[in-house]
């Protein structure tokens, strides 16, 4: 590859916008793993997460002309993933999207294996169950806040709220998670 590698994601995406489509391959390599991991935790389903990641990058390709000079690429990518999740859910379930966090989430109480996980008395399993029990909007803001590449200002950009609101919501969500987690630990058989 003779093409020099631009320094930042933003520069790469600008190159994509100008027609250098190989740059999108580089962006995919940099980000698809984190995005996939986030979506698996958010949806609880690998296949849905893969579908959403694929759609996100295909939309970046298709709508590359709309990428703007300002803002953060990562925030834009997670924002797109929200939209894609909403669209996929709407198309597959033929249900109106009430809100992106709702769309992203599965229904925790109906999740196959949730009880088994709790009964396993394993901290990871308990934490997954606790995560499932969070309100989808709380789960979303908490998981977004765990992405190292996203500052609270960028989390706020993804969620379309203020940075202060994102920080407060993330803290509240973490508190909720802790309460569920500790409660499950107490209830778990020794």
């Amino acid at each position: 590859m003779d093409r020099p590698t631009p320094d930042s994601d933003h520069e790469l995406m600008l190159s994509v916008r100008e027609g250098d489509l190989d740059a999108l391959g580089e962006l995919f390599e940099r980000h698809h793993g984190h995005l996939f991991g986030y979506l698996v935790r958010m949806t609880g389903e690998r296949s849905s997460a893969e579908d959403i990641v694929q759609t996100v990058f295909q939309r970046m390709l298709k709508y590359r002309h709309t990428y703007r000079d300002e803002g953060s690429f990562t925030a834009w990518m997670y924002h797109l993933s929200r939209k894609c999740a909403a669209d996929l859910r709407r198309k597959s379930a033929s249900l109106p999207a009430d809100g992106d966090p709702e769309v992203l989430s599965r229904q925790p109480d109906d999740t196959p294996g949730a009880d088994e996980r709790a009964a396993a008395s394993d901290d990871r399993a308990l934490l997954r169950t606790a995560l499932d029990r969070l309100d989808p909007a709380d789960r979303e803001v908490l998981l977004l806040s765990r992405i190292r590449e996203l500052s609270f200002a960028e989390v706020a950009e993804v969620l379309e709220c203020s940075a202060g609101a994102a920080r407060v919501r993330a803290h509240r969500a973490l508190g909720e998670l802790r309460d569920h987690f500790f409660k499950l630990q107490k209830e778990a058989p020794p």
Partner: protein
Amino acid sequence: MNCARTREHLLELIDGRLATETAAEVRKHLGECQACRNEFETLSRTLHALDSLPEVGPSGQLRANVMASIEAEKRALRAGKWQPAPRLPRPIRLPWRIGLQALAACVLLAFGYLAGSHRVSTQAGPANDATALQLADLKSRMDSMGQLVGYTLLQQQKGSANDRLEGVLTSATLQRPVGNVIDDLVSTLVLDPSANCRLNAVEALYAHADSEVVRTAIRVSLPREQSPLVQLAMIDFLAAVRDRDAAPAFQKLSTNALADPSVRVAAGRALTQL
């Protein structure tokens, strides 16, 4: 720093993302407040457990699919073709009566234009500027009406909404002037009776988001659109392209009690984005 302010910063403190000065203030408070210290310790344990969840990777098929999409787009670029959206709308079929009315209007406009042209050309001396401007406007309207009639009559031959979608998908892949593609998509957006077709028209118009005509068409259509889904797509579009001229429309929608609640919320949110 009080308890509320301290707790607001705990997440960032745990992550080491807090500015040095603020971190020092938070730590100072933690040293003095047992309740906040407990909060910090339990949140830290929870976060540690959350971050320790094993990472899972996607299948190799994901990479293959995305790279295949990129290669397909590159081939299309090399061939000088515009790669279409996955689903693109086809212009609509209108009832024959509407087509006939449009045709009649076109004939009348044509008659007016020809008569006016004749009058100007027979005048002595330089043509009257105001008349020439009126004629230019009339000709422009006649051209538009002619497009509508042609479009309408064309649609008489088309079938279902699916046929229309397929039709535009096909036509958009051909090497057609961009203006023609935009005309078709905007016509679909404004006139198609199928919400699905209109929705796909909005999606397809992203490829032409730089066009003022496209942005204006979506902006003007937004208040008239009946389907909340299409309205949401239009709001997303205008917000994505940061169309500041859409602010009044967003403002009205966000306070319109008759609008769908999701549309009101989206319009209000879009307003803050502009």
